[in-house]
């Protein structure tokens, strides 16, 4: 059984590499814009021929770690403003042109980057590129639109954080316990007072500093002809003027020297919850060590056979749900250094945080001394390959992965190489990763329910 799986997984890894990575084509415009072009696999003997759909994304090398003190949430607010019109496009025009062409759009703000994307029928490729280029060249930032989007963002924060149980858990609540610098610790959604004080002048400065073409990656994937797509990219982005690219600061900081504790009172939560946060190896400089942590996360909580599900959920009935993994926002390889390994669990009021932590620590100790079994490693490798296939069968995921990987790692090709590298993680690597998750350098965040009415409608 195990041997068969190992064979299958190597073949699958190779096949995925061939498919996802029909070597993305790459060019850099004179203004510094980096471009990744990733056509569907060339029509071959048994290739089905992709659907007539294209994905377009632009990743700017600025996220919420770069926003200044007093302007928490600004990177995200600015993302909203990029949809509010540009020199050739009135307010609302971007949405109308994308959707009226049969497409979809969105954007999202992360720790180290901000992305904008569209998926369109392939006959709208040039229109999609035009829309991205126009706002990269000359976005129209007005007081009226800024005030409107401050209101919209505040509603977004009420929806996702303030009016619901476990809002911002753990991505907003854990960093201030684990990290000490403003860049790493602050709330990326922003405080209402900071959002309200944002000015048009702030927006102009932010755009001119961070939204230079040389600070961005454009990705075009799907039903495209590479030469034609490259021609259209030159046509629409070629005359976006070059501007200086800011030097990227290091956000590194020392590990905590003692276990850090934090507590958050949640008026909507019916059950207590806990998040444990640990520092990770540098995702770019120490990628293989980082990937050992990715495998560790899967061994700990992916599926009914995983270690912490078995121990804390099914055997000891300590927690209702538990999740472990690399990355603060729910996915690994989404940020540069420093990055966070998180373990989150919701538990009954009758179970103390300490009991949950003891059980987690004893399972980590066991993995650190004995390592995972070969069956566990095979399981993770097979599921990971399969999950990557599924993910990349969705054009939007494939486009965004190529773009963020090119931006963060400088090599979009890495996307296709990951299954092989994950498959190469050894039992010793995982044991070492488990050993490095030490209680004395971690952060513990407790969620304390403060609601007497059990959160229900009265």
């Amino acid at each position, binding site marked *: 059984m195990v041997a068969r799986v190992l064979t299958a997984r190597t073949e699958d890894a190779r096949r995925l590499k061939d498919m996802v990575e029909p070597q993305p084509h790459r060019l850099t415009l004179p203004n510094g814009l980096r471009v990744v072009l990733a056509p569907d696999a060339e029509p071959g003997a048994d290739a089905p021929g992709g659907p007539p759909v294209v994905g377009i994304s632009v990743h700017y090398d600025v996220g919420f770690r770069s926003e200044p003190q007093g302007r928490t949430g600004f990177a995200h607010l600015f993302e909203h403003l990029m949809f509010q019109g540009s020199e050739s496009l009135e307010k609302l025009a971007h949405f109308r042109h994308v959707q009226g062409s049969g497409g979809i759009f969105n954007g999202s703000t992360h720790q180290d980057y901000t992305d904008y994307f569209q998926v369109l*029928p392939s006959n*709208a490729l040039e229109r999609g590129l035009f829309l991205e280029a126009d706002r990269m060249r000359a976005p129209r930032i007005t007081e009226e639109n800024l005030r409107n989007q401050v*209101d*919209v963002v505040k509603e977004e924060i009420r929806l996702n954080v303030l009016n619901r149980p476990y809002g911002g858990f753990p991505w907003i609540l854990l960093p201030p316990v684990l990290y000490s610098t403003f860049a790493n610790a602050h709330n990326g959604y922003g405080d209402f007072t900071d959002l309200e004080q944002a000015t048009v002048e702030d927006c102009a400065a932010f755009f001119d500093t961070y939204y230079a073409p040389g600070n961005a990656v454009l990705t075009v994937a799907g039903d495209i002809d590479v030469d034609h797509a490259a021609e259209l990219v030159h046509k629409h982005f070629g005359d976006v003027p070059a501007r200086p690219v800011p030097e990227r600061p290091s956000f590194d900081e020392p590990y905590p020297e003692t276990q850090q504790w934090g507590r958050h009172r949640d008026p909507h939560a019916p059950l207590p919850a806990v998040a444990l946060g640990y520092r990770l190896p540098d995702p770019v400089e120490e990628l293989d060590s980082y990937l050992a942590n990715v495998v560790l996360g899967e061994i700990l909580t992916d*599926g009914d056979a995983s270690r912490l599900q078995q121990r804390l959920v099914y055997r000891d009935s300590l927690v*209702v749900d538990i999740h472990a993994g690399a990355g603060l926002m729910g996915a690994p390889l989404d940020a540069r250094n420093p990055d966070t390994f998180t373990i989150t669990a919701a538990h009954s009021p009758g179970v103390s945080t300490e009991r949950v932590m003891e059980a987690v620590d004893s399972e980590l100790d066991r993995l650190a001394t004995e390592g995972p079994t070969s069956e566990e490693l095979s399981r993770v490798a097979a599921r990971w390959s*399969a999950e990557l296939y599924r993910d*990349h*069968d*969705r054009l939007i995921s494939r486009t965004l992965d190529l773009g963020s990987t090119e931006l963060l790692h400088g090599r979009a090709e890495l996307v296709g190489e990951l299954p092989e590298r994950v498959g190469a993680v050894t039992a010793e690597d995982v044991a070492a990763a488990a050993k490095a998750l030490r209680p004395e350098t971690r952060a513990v965040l407790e969620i304390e329910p403060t609601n007497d009415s059990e959160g229900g409608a009265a």
Partner: protein
Amino acid sequence: MTGATHRSAEEIGRTERGPRPLPELGEPRPGRQPEVVDTVLDNGLRVLAARHGSVPMVELRLRIPFAGDDPSHPARAEVLAETLLTGTERRDRVRMDTDLAAVGGTLQASVDPERLSVTGDALASGMDTLLDVLNDALTGATYPEHEVNGERERLVERITVARSQPRVIAREELQRHRYGGHPFAREVPQAADVAEVTTEQVRELHRRAVLPRGSTLVLVGDVDPHEAVDAVSRAFSGWQSTGSARELPELPPVEGGDVRLVHREGAVQSQLRFSAQAVPRTDERYPALQIANLVFGGYFSSRLVENIREDKGYTYGAHSTFEFTPGNGTILVDADTASEVTAAALLEIRYEFGRLALNPPTTAEVESARQYAIGGLLTSTSSQAGLASTLMNLAALGLGQEWLASHPDRLRAVTVDEVAEAARWYVPTAFTGVVVGDADQLGGQLRGLGGVTLP
């Protein structure tokens, strides 16, 4: 804010060359329709299999109609769904997960008032294993005592968490408001009912209700559809029934009426939820209604979103969607707004209902919505998972791939007059609904507006 010198916003928004024209669209390239086999096996199970997509995976969807009148049915059904995949004569819970993982696979069961649903995927080369594990559970689930006990206790806690979510509270209140005691309204079971469920009751429910006749299985991926159907036929040969899986009893039409205000302690934002009667997806008026709905609030470039988000900033998102069940269709409209602007948002939503009916969509609005609807079919079915879910949703309504393939032409044929006709479904008096929020703060303004029942 960065200290460096920079241009002003006015300078940034202007270039020497000035505004540029929007590029025209190219010639659309038609998508290739996937090869689909759609058949009913001897045991009464309908199977749809399609070769589709670019990765060596297979997606699985199983729908077993699972309605029940008994007030204890939702609790028993929920425990059944949570424990269906936790043990058989041949496999314990860990073995199931390990066998699936070996082929990169997953299986998950869930239940609602309409159906028991199993969703899964695996490497295409592991399809036989995926089907074997699923068949093992369907024909031989043992519901081990300790698994049922454990899941029951966890469910009680999970239900408490579910009912602390504003969207769950709002959905529950809306269902009760528009359907009263109908089984369709019982989505999240009561914790007290779950606590009473016994292992024997779950086993009995499985024997009585987990039936192939009337159920549907969809497989989409890197598979030969004929071979996939044969594989299902072989794997599921032991799953037999004379009776049919049970569909939901007919739903009464939604009647327009007062919106009910529901108090939620400590709320800083309110959930506005509205519903009106519409037509089934199979109705010939549906394509026109689909376009009318997009113009109203069914996509970002709609009247409702442009009004209450992009103009007034009352909400992060507003939506208008359809809920289809066999033989029925309703309109659902939702928006979440801060307490201080809830009454104003309610007023604007009512205004947009009336405006759609009285000032129907223009040619430009219809064209935009039409293109979005046609493009949406293309993008949403381009992945294996997307096509599998779409086929299952259609199959539940008695439709198949041929409906999907011919729908773009139906959308192209819709006239502006037909959309105007369909827009009449949006007259304000057709709608009823609920508002969930801080009644102490909302009560006064909503009373003043009228058409709202206060707690």
